[in-house]
């Protein structure tokens, strides 16, 4: 923390160099970013003073940071002054599903999503989605019995300030990176989870059912704390494509696992990837990190990334507790003009810590797909072990796959293994399927599902079935 403090001090003493300041009418939803914007957001959310102070400090830090450019991505610069940071009043609703983009509607149908749920996902104005509401209520009652806290982040700021104060920014420091700093300043809402000592959460926790906090917007903030000997499996996102007006997303997720605790975090990301010509689409700059603080704790990330025009995401684990375990299972699909630079960091600081990385990249169309991963074994981390498997699958010959593995091994007792493969689905393979009566799209689905099986197997059952369909849909039209 002292280093952070140093940075903080140096930054706050600097001249304000960005010239962003402008007077914002308090009554109008702010376009652009300044201290006033942050005060406005905080006030709208009726936040306590400490929360506002924290945001303002983060804003000062963000202003001093350069935007990163080391990633293997090319995109038009984001104009941070043209974004509205408090979008709630502008939230557009549709009157019926007929107004929805027909392509999104077609995808809902292919995934077999019931009509009522389609309305919810598309943001159609409905009086109440009764089934879902009752599900939520039932969930909440059941969870409360075990003392589990599962609520929106805003609610947690009011109801559980001690926990929020203690852990917010403890895993991803404010100054960690440009986008996390931005998130700290302007985060909209998100989830908060606390699992008490010795409790095994009786159900998968899913943002999908956290109905009160839907439309959390582009700067989501999630904090999950698993106390000693507890267990939780958390599902983020949903296989259905989500309608979204915001182009920039910069979320932060922090996980904290105490002794013998286990957190399993699964994501299916399916934001709008842009059209076939590469126009539009979400920029997704996410910071996800878990800290295995306690001995024998475990954090496992599983992600299926199919959406967004640009993905910049490295769910990581800090393995501080002795014998703690970090896992990263990823399938990242890019098609058309999508770009993904994703991977993980496994930081071994505790003794006999273990990590496992399984990354499966799939590139199609004219897309670019990069794996970037760091395995670091610190001096004190006796007996650390890592296994990394990074596979790339290319569909056609106009796409790219790149692997950037980094290893920083400071302890000689470490055991680190890295395997990488690249394969290509070319005309020959497709012709073989077709000669047996199997059409191209079924062929691609079979190959991709076989290839991604090890990762899909990590997902909860229902999610896995949908994720398989999603992979096939994402790659439609990518061959031939």
């Amino acid at each position, binding site marked *: 923390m002292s280093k952070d403090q140093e940075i903080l001090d140096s930054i706050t003493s600097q001249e304000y160099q960005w010239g962003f300041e402008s007077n914002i009418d308090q009554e109008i939803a702010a376009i652009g970013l300044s201290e006033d914007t942050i005060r406005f957001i905080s006030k709208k959310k009726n936040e306590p003073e400490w929360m506002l102070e924290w945001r303002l400090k983060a804003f000062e830090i963000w202003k001093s940071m350069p935007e990163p450019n080391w990633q293997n991505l090319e995109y038009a610069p984001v104009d941070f002054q043209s974004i509205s940071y408090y979008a709630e009043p502008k939230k557009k609703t549709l009157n019926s599903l007929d107004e929805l983009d027909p392509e999104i509607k077609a995808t809902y149908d292919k995934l077999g999503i019931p009509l009522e749920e389609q309305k919810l996902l598309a943001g159609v104005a409905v009086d109440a989605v009764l089934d879902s509401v009752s599900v939520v209520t039932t969930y909440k009652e059941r969870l409360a019995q075990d003392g589990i806290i599962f609520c929106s982040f805003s609610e947690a700021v009011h109801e559980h300030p001690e926990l929020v104060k203690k852990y917010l920014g403890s895993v991803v420091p404010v100054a960690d990176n440009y986008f996390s700093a931005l998130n700290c300043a302007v985060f909209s809402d998100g989830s908060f989870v606390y699992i008490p000592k010795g409790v095994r959460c009786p159900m998968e926790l899913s943002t999908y059912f956290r109905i009160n906090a839907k439309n959390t917007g582009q700067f989501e903030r999630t904090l999950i704390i698993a106390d000693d000997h507890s267990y939780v499996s958390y599902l983020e996102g949903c296989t259905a494509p989500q309608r979204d007006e915001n182009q920039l997303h910069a979320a932060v997720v922090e996980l904290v696992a105490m002794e013998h605790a286990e957190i399993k975090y699964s994501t299916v990301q399916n934001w709008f990837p842009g059209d076939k010509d590469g126009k539009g689409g979400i920029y997704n700059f996410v910071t996800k990190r878990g800290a295995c603080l306690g001995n024998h704790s475990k954090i496992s990330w599983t992600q299926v990334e199919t959406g967004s025009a640009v993905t910049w995401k490295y769910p990581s684990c800090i393995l501080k507790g002795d014998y703690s375990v970090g896992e990263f299972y990823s399938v990242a699909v890019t098609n058309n003009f999508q770009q993904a630079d994703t991977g993980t960091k496994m930081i071994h600081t505790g003794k006999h810590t273990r990590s496992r990385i399984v990354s499966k990249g799939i590139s199609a169309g004219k897309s670019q797909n990069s794996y970037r991963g760091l395995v670091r074994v610190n001096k004190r981390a006796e007996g650390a072990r890592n296994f990394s498997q990074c596979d790339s699958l290319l569909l056609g010959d106009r796409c790219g796959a790149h692997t950037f593995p980094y290893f920083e091994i400071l302890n000689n007792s470490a055991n680190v293994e890295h395997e990488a493969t690249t394969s290509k689905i070319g005309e020959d393979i497709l012709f073989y399927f077709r*000669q047996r009566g*199997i059409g191209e799209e079924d062929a691609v689905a079979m*190959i991709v599902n076989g290839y991604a099986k090890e990762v899909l197997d990590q997902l909860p059952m229902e999610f896995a079935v949908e994720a398989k369909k999603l992979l096939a849909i994402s790659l439609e039209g990518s061959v031939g």
Partner: protein
Amino acid sequence: MLQIKNLHAQIEGKPILKGINLEVKAGTVHAIMGPNGSGKSTLSSVIAGREEYEVTEGEIWFNGVNILELEPEERAREGLFLAFQYPIEIPGVSNANFIKMAVNEVRKHKGLESLSATDFLKLMREKAALVGLKDDFLKRSVNAGFSGGEKKRNEIFQLAMLDPKLSILDETDSGLDIDALRTVAEGVNALKNSENAFLVITHYQRLLDYIVPDVVHVLYDGRIVETGDKNLALKLEDQGYDWVIEKHKQEA
């Protein structure tokens, strides 16, 4: 069953087939022989519908359907099977899943329901035994890490599962030892009946000792230049292709 009329085809602008005429009737086995580069593999690729080859002239009729208008998978569902010279490896997709998908696509095309899991397993075991493949191969990825012989057996296994009307065996004998050759040939012979037909493409005569052809054609420079019975194959075995080349060089 199969009628090829004046077929011309080229790849990247280079003519390979220069007027093929061929008729194959149900219940017969035709062999296509010829020196290297005569167009044997091109012929099988064009019939199966490989898109790299451009048909510039001619027709291919298969059971009354002009198959040049069909996609490769549609041709397959109509009952056209190609046993590949170089079977493709497909990591991550098991033989069982692959063939199940293929069989169900063909059944769907015929208006039949999918086979039950039990019936399917029974059928797979029966056909695997026919070509001397052990059950555990079904769980392995398609052709991945298979020996040359196993790959060719797998082709005949798939043929047996799909029960096509016309099977084209493209150099199925290449890379096979004598035992595998015999197993493969026995498999084919067991599948032969009065309803189906085989087009056996080969450079050497030895496969034809086991799969006895009714008609033998010699392909040279993109045309069928000789047609005869099995004795033609024996003559080629004995004298090689030089006399064919000598005789037809002028035309080429």
